[in-house]
Every structure is written in structure tokens, then in C-alpha cells.
């Protein structure tokens, strides 16, 4: 097998004395969905920020297609094909669909200093890209992004990333703020991106959503990778247990076992 598209090796990140990420190693292949699961504060967002060039790892390496890469800025990560879509997708609510789609990469026509923004082309491309992802309700590129539903905004942001040639798509809690129907739509779009050979890193704490689209799962607990498994290797209950402080549960079980061992096999008394 060829080198994975994205490979994290022994990533550590500390902010001052606090270790936020401890020895994280992960691999994502093209056309695969990696679900990153974890409770709030488990270090998911720090990990995304390292991948998208916002933070630098304290130690450890990020490799792409077998080569070590070094991101100095989000722009850098973007140039390497890593695109991040945040929970609320479109970040420019008062811009039109066409304009926001091309922020920083505006299509131009004309010559010299009189080059003008090609609004029609921007609108056409943006609308086409979103429709290709199955959002057929959008047909006017002049509509303001703020007027779209949460799912449509996610679709627009994903369409933008795909259009600009992202090979790794990081989705930060894309379904968290959505209703059931809209979430299903976004999940379908995730699968479409995967079908196009894009590596998707899907951050969520919804186990059902993760199991629906994921090929590969990693669970973060307190900054460390607690589990790393492929589709079908764990049941939903096991994963939920793991996420819902599986660690605390294990501690509790160990305490009970210790009590039983020292009390002739009697379980600890239960307070009535």
C-alpha cells in the first residue's frame, strides 16, 4: 500500500505547563472518512488547529503523501490541500453566495488595473458546485449566505473546499447545530466527498453520525488517543461507553474489584 495521504506521528502539544495533546499518531487515506470522537475538552479542536496550520505541534510530525510537511499558517495548510469547514460553515453571512465562495480567489476579467470581479462567472460556478452536492434549492448566486439554512451553509463551505482542490477535508462538528433531516443531508455530502477520493476528517460527538459515514475511528480522551479502530470492529455501545468517560467507568470497575478482593468477594455495600 502507498503512503497514507495524511499521517500524524507522535504529535504532542502543550500550552505552557498544560499538555493538551499527548503522543497522537493517526493516518488518513484518500477516499476514507476518519471520525474523530471525543468529549468536550478532549483536544479535538487543538488537533484540528495543528492540521489546519493555526497552531504548531510542540513535537511530532505531520506527513502528507509520505513527506514531512510544516505548516506556518492556515494559508500554508490550504496550499497543501487541507481545508477546514467550521460548525457554522459560511462565515460571511452578509455576502452573496458567489462572492463568499471566491473570497481570496476571485475570478477576474478585463485587463491591467481595470480587471473587474467576474460576478456572473463566480455566481455560476458557486451555484453549480453547490448543486452538484445535491442542494438544488440554491439557484441564485446573488442570495446572501446568511439567508441559507445551516445545512446549506455547510454544503456551500464543503463545495468551496472541493472546488479549490482540497485533498483533505476537515469538518468540525458539521452536524452539531442541525436538525435530523439537515444532518442527514450533510452526511450524504460527506459520503460524496469521500467518493471523490477526498480524505475526510469528521469531528463529532454524535456516535450515530460517526458510524453512518466513518471508515476509521479514533477516540480522544484527555488529549490522548484512547482507541483507534476500523469500521465494524466496535459496536455503538462500546464507542458510546468509551466516549462517555469510559475511563471513569474503568476506574470505578477497578475500585470495585479491589474492594471485592480485600473483602472476601463481597461487593461494596450500597447505601440505602
Amino acid at each position, binding site marked *: 500500500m502507498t503512503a497514507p495521504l495524511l499521517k500524524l506521528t507522535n504529535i504532542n502539544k502543550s500550552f505552557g505547563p498544560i499538555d493538551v495533546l499527548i503522543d497522537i499518531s493517526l493516518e488518513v487515506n484518500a477516499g476514507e472518512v476518519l471520525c474523530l470522537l471525543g468529549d468536550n475538552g478532549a483536544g479535538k479542536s487543538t488537533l484540528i488547529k495543528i492540521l489546519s496550520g493555526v497552531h504548531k505541534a510542540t513535537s511530532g510530525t505531520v506527513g502528507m503523501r509520505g513527506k514531512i510537511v510544516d505548516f506556518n499558517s492556515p494559508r500554508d495548510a490550504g496550499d497543501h490541500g487541507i481545508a477546514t469547514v467550521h460548525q457554522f460553515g459560511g*462565515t460571511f453571512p*452578509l*455576502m452573496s453566495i458567489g462572492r463568499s465562495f*471566491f473570497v481570496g480567489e476571485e475570478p477576474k476579467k478585463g485587463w491591467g488595473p481595470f480587471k473587474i470581479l467576474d460576478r456572473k462567472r463566480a455566481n455560476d460556478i458557486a451555484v453549480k458546485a453547490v448543486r452538484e452536492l445535491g442542494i438544488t434549492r440554491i439557484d441564485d448566486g446573488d442570495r446572501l449566505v446568511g439567508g441559507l439554512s445551516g445545512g446549506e451553509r455547510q454544503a456551500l463551505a464543503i463545495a468551496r473546499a472541493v472546488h479549490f482542490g482540497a485533498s483533505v477535508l476537515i469538518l468540525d462538528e458539521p452536524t452539531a447545530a442541525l436538525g435530523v433531516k439537515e444532518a442527514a443531508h450533510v452526511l450524504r455530502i460527506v459520503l460524496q466527498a469521500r467518493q471523490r477520493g477526498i480524505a475526510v476528517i469528521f469531528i463529532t460527538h454524535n456516535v450515530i453520525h460517526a458510524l453512518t459515514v466513518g471508515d476509521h475511528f479514533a477516540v480522544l480522551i484527555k488529549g490522548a488517543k484512547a482507541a483507534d479502530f476500523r469500521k465494524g470492529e466496535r459496536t455503538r455501545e462500546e464507542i458510546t461507553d468509551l466516549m462517555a468517560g469510559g475511563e471513569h467507568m474503568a476506574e470505578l470497575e477497578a475500585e470495585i474489584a479491589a474492594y471485592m478482593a480485600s473483602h472476601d468477594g463481597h461487593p461494596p455495600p450500597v447505601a440505602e
Partner: protein
Amino acid sequence: MSNQTRRPALGNLLRRPETGSLLGLVTVFVFFAVFGGADFASATGAASWLNVAASLGIVALPIGLLMIAGELDISIGSMIPAGSMAVAIVSGHFHAPILVGIGTALAIGAVVGFINGVLVVRTAVPSFIVTLGTLFAVAGLVLGLSVILTGTTSVGIKAGPEAKWLLGHFIGGTFQVTIFWWIAAALLFGFVLHYSHYGNWILAMGGDKVSARNAGIPTERVTILLFMCSGVSAAFVGLSQAILYNSAQVSAGQSYIFNAIISVVVGGVLLTGGYGSVVGIVLGTITFAIVNQGIYYTGFDANWASLIIGILLLLAVLMNNTFRKLALAYSPARGKSRT
């Protein structure tokens, strides 16, 4: 997709940031045309508000762009007298060629703008505070330097006929030539904001600066350039007034600060940035100028003008909010008339 070109007119109208300000302008104009009588509607009546609108408009345009980009510049209040004093001291007091005086004034505007921009970008202190600081600093500097250099706070300047013709004469005895500079500035800023890709950058910066930077926009450079624009524009207004009135005073221009902000907000620009248009800023400026001057044509006491402006500002903000909500909610009827 050929039906994309035929949009329902209502949607396009609602989406324009200036729709509210157009209604405001029409209301105000009709009001003063009724109460101001024939004098207000005459050429001299038009000149009285156009002249006010022109000088104000030239500073309101860059202020508007700054506000769309999420910043504010109130140092224009002392940049305008700084521009007049610079040209009057250099060309009037020291008799240097007028071009040197004009160059000095514009250069001072650019430098102050640059300092504003760099301070805002580097320190992340809100631009209101930074430019409040430079407002006072520049005012003090102008006053101090004028007294040291000329021994007075009011300097005369006699510009040559070319400079007068270009910057400071009354066309037909009533219309200031500044009106044409204002039109030129509006066309230039309109091109930048609505047709060039820089306009997209400015809108994106006002919408979300972090995302804009992540998308590869050189936000710091654009911010500094916008502050330089407003510094130069304010200096330009100052120097053309000095040339027009043949003299410059240290203290003239503080009223421009709020007048420019009012014009911009009445024109539909969102105070927090990310939304607005040049047409709106122009309409807002005209609305302000009409209220400011129109009152003299009515039988009312001129003291009421501020009351009208205050109410107008509040109404404009409320109306613009309503229109923005409509613009966000508006989408063409689905599933009908689509082929």
C-alpha cells in the same frame, strides 16, 4: 441556467444596502421641497446642499469603506485642518509653489493614515481608540507647529489661477468645483468596492477578519491602505477648502467626524462591518446635507436641524436593519416558474 439572468426585481432591490437610504433621501427631499418652497428647489438651493455634501462626501467615502472593513477613523477631524494648515503654511506663509504645498498636505495625510493603520494592525487596539489618540495628537501638533512656524493660528493663502480653477472656485458663482472631485471619488471608490476584487476583500474583512486572513487576503495591508486613503482624502478636503476660502484655521473639521459617520450609517453601511455600498454612502451624504441646509429654507428655527438629524439617524438604522433582515430572508419562490 439561462433563467439566472432574469431575477425577480424585488429580490435584487431588497439585497441592495442602499434601498433604505434611497427611501430616506426621497422622504427628506420631499419634506424640504414642500416646506422650503421654491428657493430650496432652485439652483442656488441645490448648490447649498451639494457644496456641503461634496466636502463631506469626499471624507465619508473612505470612512464608509473603513467601516465596511470593520474599522473606524475619527482622526479625520484633525486631518482636515492639518491639510488646510499644511498647504497654507507651505505655500501661503513660506511662498513655496502650490504643488509643494498640496504635496505636503497629502503626504501628511498619508503618513497619519499609515500610523493609524499600523497601530490598529499591530496592537489590535480598537481603531476608535487608536484614531481618538491620533485625533488629539494631530490637533495638538498642528496647533503647536502653526504657532512656532507662523506665530498665529490662522494663515492666509493666495493660490494661483490654475490651482483655484482646479480646487477652489465656484462654477457659475454657486457650485463648488469640489462637487466634481466628489463625483470622481465616488466613481473610484465605487469601482474598488463593487467591481474590483479588492471590494470582495473589504467585505470579507468586515464579515470575519480571521476567516478572511485564512482565505489568503492580506488583511493587514488592506487595513493600512484604507486608513491611508481616509487620511489623504481628509487632507485633500482641508487643502481644497484653504484654497477656496484663501485661508486656513487650526480648528475646523471636528464636525466632520460625526457628520461623516452619520452619512455612512444613514447610507446603509453596517456599523460592525461587512455590509454596505458606495451608492448608499453617497445617498446618505446627500440626505445629511439636505437636512443640514434645507432647514434654512423653511420657516423653522435652524436649531431644529440637529433634532431632525438625530431622529433621521435612528430611523435610518432601524430601516436598514429591517431591509437587511428582508434581504437575508428573501429567496425567490421555489418550484414555480422554473423551467
